[in-house]
């Protein structure tokens, strides 16, 4: 790792001020993406600004319509939350298959969403549930937030403060994990919102990161069942191919994971 300067501000405003002072600063939450990248010398921030323990960024709130998870809430706390299990059990399940227990103690939902790794779990939930990404400046709808591989609508110094998930009528998540990294080889999140809208997303599949899957959304709108997806073919165009799987393997996984996710959603 190259040399860097570590800061632990007490407030979001202090964090933003420190960011402005650094020549090439980065925010640090759980650190389970940024630190490995720094260790490989693929990133060399002048300053790392630890926002993981800012009190206003931690906590979970549920109303009848919305589940709000603040950005620096760890996966462990999300997994332990009765509110999450009660309102959107699919998010509890997603969290239980994310990383491993040691990673879940450190990793945060805001970190995952801000990084937008193409194989990460949370972007699939945020996009499928049509969640709102709240920052220290504005509110960004999920459809406008994710902009391709490791790219989001966030400004460099902008901080996610919370993710607000509308509580859906039904939701389910199914994941084929890479057994070593525990990232998604391909995973699918299906949601039937209270408005009746059906949104389906896949992660770990597209070269552009998390994506919606219109062909599955249409089939489920006509008939919400795993069987309705039986005859569907997903195009392998634009899907990732690597040592873990070819693009047509991932295309098939999208269908199979979608069927499992629908079955899980009930």
């Amino acid at each position: 790792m190259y040399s860097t300067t570590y800061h632990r501000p007490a407030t979001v405003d202090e964090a933003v001020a420190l960011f402005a002072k650094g020549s090439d600063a980065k925010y640090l939450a759980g650190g389970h993406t940024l630190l490995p990248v720094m260790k490989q010398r693929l990133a060399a921030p002048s300053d790392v600004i630890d926002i993981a323990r800012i009190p206003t960024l931690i906590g979970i709130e549920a109303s009848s319509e919305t589940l709000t998870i603040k950005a620096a809430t760890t996966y462990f706390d999300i997994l332990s939350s009765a509110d999450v299990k009660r309102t959107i059990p699919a998010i509890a399940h997603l969290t239980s298959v994310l990383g491993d227990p040691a990673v879940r103690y450190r990793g945060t939902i805001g970190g995952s969403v801000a990084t937008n790794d193409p194989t990460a779990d949370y972007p699939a939930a945020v996009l499928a549930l049509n969640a709102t990404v709240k920052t220290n400046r504005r509110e960004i709808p999920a459809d406008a937030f994710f902009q391709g591989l490791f790219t989001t609508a966030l400004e460099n110094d902008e901080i996610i403060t919370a993710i607000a998930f509308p509580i859906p009528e039904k939701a389910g998540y199914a994941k084929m994990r890479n057994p070593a990294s525990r990232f998604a080889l391909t995973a699918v999140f299906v949601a039937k919102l209270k408005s009746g809208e059906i949104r389906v997303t896949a992660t770990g599949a597209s070269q552009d990161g998390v994506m919606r899957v219109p062909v599955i959304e249409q089939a489920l709108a006509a008939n919400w069942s795993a069987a309705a997806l039986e005859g569907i073919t997903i195009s392998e165009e634009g899907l990732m191919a690597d040592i873990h799987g070819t693009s047509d393997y991932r295309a098939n996984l999208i269908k199979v994971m979608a069927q499992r996710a629908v079955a899980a959603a009930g």
Partner: protein
Amino acid sequence: MANVQLTVNGKAVSADVEDRTLLVQLLRDHLGLTGTHVGCDTSQCGACIVHIDGRAVKSCTTLVGQVDGANITTIEGISKGDELHPMQAAFRDNHGLQCGYCTPGMIMSAIDIVNRYGADLDEDTVRHELEGNICRCTGYHNIVKSVLDAASRMKLSIAAE
């Protein structure tokens, strides 16, 4: 450079280290606590797991600044003198280690698992919970056996205290 102050295995530690220092480097290179291992160095294998404020965390993916003020327990800090921790004793009795490289991380993870689940552990839970610890000898069968054995021993030792 930064000064960090933390508690390691019950002892107060003050260290002047570069900000880029990882917790595992502080433990091994500065404090000589080489029981904590670096396996993959990519946050996947769990050989470097220690307890930070009672939670099993990967010390290769933690900057020392992040643990300033924290209470750290490593594999060196769990026995009572010559008396092994029940998890260590169970690993020895059940042949839960072969080359031993992953063992410190396995044991620190396993103690955390038993702390969270109590003695009501089943094999599936142990296997799922140990996902973040990789054994290249593939000795998982006896590792799982050790953890289940230790869970009942730890229940007894908690009841005895």
